[in-house]
């Protein structure tokens, strides 16, 4: 295939651009405009002259918790039925749809006839998860949600990034972020 080449003319460097000073001042103008506008908003809010939100504030993350949107997809959670058993029937649709292949389920016979099949193990490797939410969409029994409101999922080792069924159900607390630290 013949390559089509288009020659782009380089922007001309004049003396004014080469000393940078003018461009620096242009940039600082934006910074200071924000500073004074925000200062005015905070002052007006403090004096009761303005309703609604105060001016912009820097979020002190990680000292303050992160503010999440209502529909943010966060760490997975497995739900339980009314009798306390996991809702999951091990149909493997989430494992099938998962584009990151981070879900591993093994199935077994359930003791009651009403629920024939259940998960023997259910592992999610959050180190591989891309938080697309397809597993939640695919689930026919509403057994998996991504609403644990936890985004700080990092752990010291890759192995610790894998959450098992008891941890996803909330029955067992996950190992701490720093190995050896108190839970």
């Amino acid at each position: 295939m013949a390559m089509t080449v288009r020659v782009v003319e380089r922007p001309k460097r004049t003396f004014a651009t080469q000393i940078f000073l003018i461009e620096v001042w242009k940039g600082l103008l934006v910074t200071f405009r924000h500073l004074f506008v925000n200062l005015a908003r905070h002052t007006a809010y403090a004096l009761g002259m303005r309703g609604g939100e105060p001016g912009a504030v820097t979020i002190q993350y990680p000292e303050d918790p992160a503010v999440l949107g209502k529909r943010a997809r966060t760490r997975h959670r497995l739900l339980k039925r009314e009798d306390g058993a996991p809702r999951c029937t091990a149909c493997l649709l989430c494992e099938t749809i998962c584009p990151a292949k981070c879900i591993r389920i093994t199935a077994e016979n359930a003791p009651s006839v009403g629920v024939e099949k259940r998960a023997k193990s259910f592992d999610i490797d959050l180190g591989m998860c891309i938080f697309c939410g397809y597993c939640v969409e695919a689930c026919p029994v509403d057994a998996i949600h991504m609403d644990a409101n936890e985004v700080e999922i990092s752990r010291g080792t890759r192995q610790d990034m894998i959450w098992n069924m008891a941890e996803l159900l909330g029955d067992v607390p996950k190992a701490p972020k720093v190995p050896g630290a108190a839970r």
Partner: protein
Amino acid sequence: MAKVKFKLNGRELEAEAGRLVIEAAKDAGVEIPHYCYHPALGNPGNCRMCIVEVAGAPKPQVSCRLPVLEGLDVKSDSPAAKRAQASALELHLVNHPLDCPVCDQSGECGLQDYYMKIGQYQSQVREDKVHKGKRLEIGPHVMLDQERCILCTRCTRFVDDVTKTHELGVFKRGHVERIELTPGMTLDNGYTGNVVDVCPVGALTDRDFRYQVRVWYLDKTDSICPGCSRGCSISVHTNTKRNWHNEGRRVARIKPRYNPDVNGHWICDDGRYSYRPLDAGRLGKVLRLQPAREEISWAEAAVEIADRLREGDPKGLAVVASGLLSNEDWKALKELLPQSPLYFSPEPDQVGEADELLRRREKVPNLKGAEALGLKSGSFEALAKDLESGKVWGLYVIERDLEKVWGAKAKDLLAKAKWSLFQGPFKTPLSEAGSYRLPATAYVEETGHFTNFEGKVQAYHKALEPIGSAKPDHEIFGLIRAALAAEREGAAA
């Protein structure tokens, strides 16, 4: 038979007079939906799924009861025909529990397939569904769920017409009509797995395969059953991409493959459930066992074995093989050791029950292949005598468990030989009694040909990668033969 012309969906077609419209359509590449019709089990016409529009007929007709006639004008995809098919499907689903998430059939279910193809309607059912028996273990291999059943009666026709054992029947009438075991019987006739195959829905499922792995993860490879000299065509279903399923076993199930010349649509349970031990007790390392147990390379092993073979009289080396070898293996073995006596008779350990349907007495697939190459087997009793008298100095054992051949005295007999070697895919009690242990591939890991008892040569294909450094038997024979030839050249120079 005379040919007649008829029209299907506007296409001019020709078929034998008297052939059913559903069959003639299939020949022309048009699949008319159906449940009860099965080419080997007849056409009761009770499922009403294959309903088509026939020009001139006041009502739609079922195409599995309609013979092709001259000038017949059939439409299987007209709006009226599709509406009639969708209505039939809707009736089948009125009391279906729709538990696809936990049903092993899902992914290969007739109800799912036709719903996506011709259904797609909104359910009108507001009433509670009728409840029937679930999770009924009706035999050692088969699980029955009466709620999922659509009463096509394929399974009852199978046990009535094919095995003639009559374990299943249709009981009661109306909305409580159901498939049930004949009182006092269990479904255990040696061919029970076939009712799972003919069941178009999830009513009859395999207990062995239950919840092991979803069918859409499986890869399918055409193969030949090595269970007896019939050589039934099978399809090996393997799960290799998600190894946490199926308890880590690579072969998930074996299904029959239609072959009108050998097995038709069926296989026996012995062959179907023979896959479980395929990953157990496998050999993967080339071992030198004497003077010390040590892993060596194929090249080293071939040179050392070739040296030993050249030293000894080839007539005093007994080759113990079995009908599990492929035609390729037999040929390579013949070329490697043309003068050595062969012992591959299925007696006494590789024979079993035979029946009129499929199962043959010899439980190995390829005795005819050896015969076709002019190979003849000596008797194992004579070999035992020759070993005791010292006439035989070496034993080349291929895939055979000598304890099953000679019983408890096998160990002593093997010790009589000055040199012996075991080659095979599976551990046997005496596989480490000789000087070398060579790992061979199982039939699912190699490509080859079996010649069945009628002389039909059939190919089987590689479904899985070999374990460790295992090689097909004919490659091992080839390596040793090349080592023999290379050293002869070296000696000549």
